[in-house]
């Protein structure tokens, strides 16, 4: 029974294999093309990255341009505020007057010291 069954199945398998072996060239060519299209999927991520690269580059360029256009104003403002504030402290009117009358303040200091001793 088993032998008969095996023979029956092997006959069907043989008929199937014959039909596979006799596939025409056009069909085999289409299968070949389909296989290579499938294998191209292995490089899919890289291709996707390449496809988006120009867009990514353009966005990056726009961002850099915006930063460059914005940056000088910001630096100038910051530097301006800093410079004016520092100069006001360093070169205030009182400080200049003190520098101009340095000898007078020195004389007062000496006079006060002598009075304390005397």
């Amino acid at each position, binding site marked *: 029974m088993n*032998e*008969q*069954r095996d*023979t*029956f*199945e092997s*006959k*069907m*398998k043989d*008929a*199937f294999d*014959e*039909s*596979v*072996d*006799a*596939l*025409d060239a056009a*069909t*085999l060519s*289409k*299968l070949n093309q*389909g*296989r290579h*299209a*499938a*294998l191209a*999927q*292995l490089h*899919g991520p890289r291709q996707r990255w390449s496809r988006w690269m120009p867009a990514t580059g353009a966005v990056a360029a726009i961002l850099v341009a915006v930063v460059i256009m914005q940056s000088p104003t910001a630096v100038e403002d910051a530097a301006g505020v800093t410079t004016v504030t520092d100069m006001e402290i360093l070169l205030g009117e009182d400080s200049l007057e003190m520098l101009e009358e340095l000898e007078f303040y020195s004389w007062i200091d000496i006079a006060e010291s002598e009075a304390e001793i005397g």
Partner: protein
Amino acid sequence: MEVKTAVFAVSCAGAPSIGARALQKERQLNQFLAEIERRALRIAEIGVRDRDEALDLVQDAMIKLVRNYADRAKEEWTPLFYRILQNGVRDWHRRQAVRNRVMAWVGRKPAADDDYDAIAAAPDPSGRAPDEELQNSEAMQSLETAVHELPPRQREAFMLRTFEGLDVAGTAIAMGCSQGSVKTHYSRAIHALRDRLEEHRPGHDGPMEGES
């Protein structure tokens, strides 16, 4: 410093680079698909009875296997590939059923399986005598028709076990069911085919004669 360089060089020589591994994987996949594609096409063709549709289904299965399962062990590729392909065939039949309902609703005659010309789709002769070729064509046509008319799960079990040569475990993975179910479907398929192809059995004239 020289020792470190030497150790690095040895370790690099021992392990293939990422590029080499990728190339090896591509070669293995190419070889696997080249080996399986023709049988897969015929199996899909018997399932849908249309060569162009079968070609599309096989290509879709190849793409999905490469995209989703390339990193799996080689031994797993065959059942995974056929699982994808069988799912594709089932989806195709669902779409056809919907299309036929719509066509019937709008009053047009739906495409019938009977439109399929097995002789026209039969492989080219390959140097055999005309009567032998005719006999083989008739045998394959009878077999195709009988297999196609099996219930879908029986058809899948039969084709995967007999035509593709998968074992019960592999067939179970491909069909997405238990091994017990595979055995049941397969056994019923064999009995149905035996009844259907009785005219080709021993004692009858036909290409399957000669069995004991």
